[in-house]
């Protein structure tokens, strides 16, 4: 890939401003997307990559406007197809830092297929899914993460669809990095995005995001200041899973291997589940994702799973390199003349 002036060392220390494009941000005032964008723009200068080696790819939806606001390369593509388009970019240029931004409708409804295949292939993408549990851009229809019974314009009598749990979907697809964060905690977002970026392979981050116009307060049940510490279960690698102001709540595992929320004191701290992000088998991480089925009961946030597997594009490159090594770089004349040939005249 010598024709590209790729990733030389960072020449100048870059700041947040270097990552902001000149485009006016056009989300509704008060939208959770602003907080996520800010977290990203604060974080980018710390990642050791440069804007010209960074690509933001999105599909369609409110979240999908984000690439326009980043002073990087960007493609605002087709509804649902961002993971596929990003896969093409990564295949062509494995040296780039490629981010995929989308909402719950974009990535889990019309683009569900591309998402799970990008994850199982382990394409080196950092995928941020802003989950507001609603279709915002089309003005308020229920989404594949909306709760059963959701009353919207398209479901005046309540939706009858069972929702996806995005973390379960990602772990089910055996994504190598799966995490969750939310739009009210910049520090947690930055830390989670950093980890996702540093991971080699497909990283999937669900970001709880408030759509204050069509689904305001969807996460109040777990994110309101008063309840947050009792409702968010921070996952920290190597530590017993505990939450609540004094760590009075915890997560233990029952005789069936299923995690459940308990009182730490009752179970005994030594008997709490110690979180291991690096377990090769996804079963326990999946089980943790099942602890909550919506924003009304204690919900894990942080990194569910972080395991290592060769990336798709590295293996594609490797096959090319191996073939060249084995038989030498292809000779076009020889190729055209291969097989049985004969000469006339």
């Amino acid at each position, binding site marked *: 890939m010598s024709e590209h002036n790729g990733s030389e060392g960072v020449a100048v220390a870059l700041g947040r401003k270097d990552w902001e494009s000149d485009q006016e941000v056009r989300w509704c005032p008060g939208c959770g997307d602003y907080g996520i964008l800010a977290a990203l723009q604060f974080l980018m200068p710390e990642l050791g990559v440069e804007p010209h080696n960074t690509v933001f790819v999105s599909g369609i939806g409110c979240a999908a406007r984000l690439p326009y606001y980043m*002073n990087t390369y960007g493609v605002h*593509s087709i509804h649902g197809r961002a993971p596929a388009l990003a896969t093409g970019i990564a*295949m*062509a240029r494995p040296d780039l830092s490629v981010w995929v931004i989308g909402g719950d409708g974009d990535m889990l409804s019309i683009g569900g297929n591309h998402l799970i*295949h990008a994850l199982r292939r382990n394409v080196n993408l950092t995928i941020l899914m802003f989950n507001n549990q609603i279709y915002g851009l089309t003005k308020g229809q229920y989404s594949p993460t909306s709760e059963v019974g959701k009353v919207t314009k398209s479901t005046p009598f309540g939706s009858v669809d069972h929702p996806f749990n995005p973390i379960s979907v990602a772990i089910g697809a055996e994504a190598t990095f799966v995490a969750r964060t939310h739009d009210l905690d910049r520090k947690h977002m930055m830390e989670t995005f950093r980890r996702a970026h540093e991971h080699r392979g497909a990283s999937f981050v669900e970001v709880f995001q408030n759509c204050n116009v069509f689904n305001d307060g969807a996460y109040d049940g777990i994110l309101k200041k008063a309840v947050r510490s009792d409702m968010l279960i921070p996952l920290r690698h190597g530590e017993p899973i505990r939450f609540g102001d004094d760590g009075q709540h915890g997560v233990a595992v029952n005789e069936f291997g299923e995690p459940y929320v308990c009182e730490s004191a009752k179970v005994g701290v030594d008997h709490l589940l110690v979180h291991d992000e690096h377990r090769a088998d996804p079963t326990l991480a999946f089980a943790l994702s099942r602890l909550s089925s919506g924003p009304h009961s204690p919900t894990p946030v942080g990194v569910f799973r972080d395991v290592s597997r060769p990336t798709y594009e590295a293996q594609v490159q490797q096959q090319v390199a191996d073939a060249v090594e084995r038989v030498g*770089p292809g000779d076009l004349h020889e190729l*055209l003349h291969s097989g049985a040939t004969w*000469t006339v005249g």
Partner: protein
Amino acid sequence: MSTPTLDRVVIRFAGDSGDGMQLVGDRFTDLSAAFGNDLATLPNYPAEIRAPAGTINGVSSFQIHISDHDIVTPGDSPNVLIAMNPAALVANVSDLSPGSTIIVNSDSFTERDLDKAHCSANPLDDGSLDAFTVYPVPMTSITLEATKPLGVKSRDAERSKNFFALGLICWMYTRPAAPLLEWIDDRFAGKPLVRDANAAAFKAGRNFGETAELFAHPYEVKPASLPAGTYRNIIGNTALALGLVAASRRAHLPLVYASYPITPASDILHELSKLKHFGCKTMQAEDEIAAATIALGAAFAGNLAVTGTSGPGLDLKAEALGLAISLELPMVVVDVQRAGPSTGMPTKTEQTDLLLAMYGRHGESPLPIVAAKSPSRCFDAAFEACRLALKYRTPVILLTDGLLANGAEPWRLPEVADLPDISAPFATQPNHTNADGTEDYWPYLRDPDTLARPWAIPGTRGMMHRIGGIEKQDGTGNISYQPDNHAHMVQLRQAKVDGIARDIAGVELDHQDGADVLVLGWGSTWAAITAGVRRVRARGERVAQGHLSHLSPFPADLGDVLSRYGRVLVPEANLGQLALLLRAEFLIDVQSYVQVNGLPFRAAAMESRILEEIHR
């Protein structure tokens, strides 16, 4: 006595899908190509992998036309039919003209076999084949006999009967045995028993011809005097894959080929997957939509991006094509057309996707369309599609079809040095100075000549930009919903594609003085039209032939060419799609000649239709 010669012969191998007819057809093709004949082939097989054995639905056939002169079609009607069972006979006999030869495997005409083919009487003795010369040959039993000394189980030995048939035909048309025996050695090196059984069956077939005194004598079809050069035998899908590799080399860009398995396009993916040492990055996507979108992503990142499919897949690639048109990025979409609608007849040919390629997207979304005319010319068409895509930063649709994909012909190999350089340099420097004196990169500032926008790829310092499917302001590429700008952009995108007419060859015209009728075609009908025109001219009649390799835009001289003839006949394997375009664009009352039975036009039918037009 010297061997009598024939100037040409059409042979059809027909049997059950499990009988290996495609294999022996391919072998006979290679032998004939190496012998120096001109040839054209027509494989014909069921879409099902294994339809019930012995039934008419399960019949697979391979037709080859060999000659001592330049030919273009696989032949209308076989001179010789090899039928391995009653179903193969029943399914093919109606294609024969009286006087043709039929060789059947008489061992497979038992009552059970006849039942499966729904024969109430045995056609070998009910007089229904009286118009033909029929040779019943006990192929199975001779094969078993010949392979017995090898210790092959009889069930396995029976499988070699296709090589017996091949041996017999090779004797009849004096093909050399050595290359075939070498091929068997090589191909079945890992399976010595199979190798020996096939070789024994092949030799038995030859010996049978020589000793059975059934056939008077063998025939010879002498080598054709083709233009000087080095040749190889090639099928369209392979030629197309090679054309893409050549384009990647001459564009100095790695090739990314993303595709989803679909008949009859999958072989392009298979071919390219073998060529990783050429830097080909092939990928089997999760669906047709992803395949196109992945290719587009690769284009954004600066690779030569190609996706391939057949009709049903092209339906699904429409949205990626729309985005590629809006992003103005180079991409080639190959459509190996097959009979539709919906699943249609996957293994049968048609030219029914022209209007889909032309108009099958929402909004005003023009793009160039290139079509290949013969199996070997798939190479040139692929190269041309890549050239246009790169130069004009546009998606290009390349149309071939089932007939070209699997049909074979000798290919005079191009010299690599003769292939033009088609590189499209990336933009690396700002192209606009802002009012405040700062330098900027405007992704939609166009080349005034080609109207192509600059192609700056990620990884290039200072050229960061964001583009998308939303309408863009001309120049800056920023989102714009401004009415006049949109109207301007719609016109610009059309003008860019229209302008390509200046950069492509004119109508391929074979004029004849005094001709009042022009027969104009596109794609694979070129062969039948050419054969039909030759026949008409051989009668002393006058007719002109035109061919279009570019369907969008049309060659700049097309209107002028059309106006020179009193009548224009447009044969197509659809219901008149090119005719519709010509009528709309040139207000000329062209005559459609259509056929949609999944098969190629016949030269004889073409001849009569042209004559009819001449004498109208």
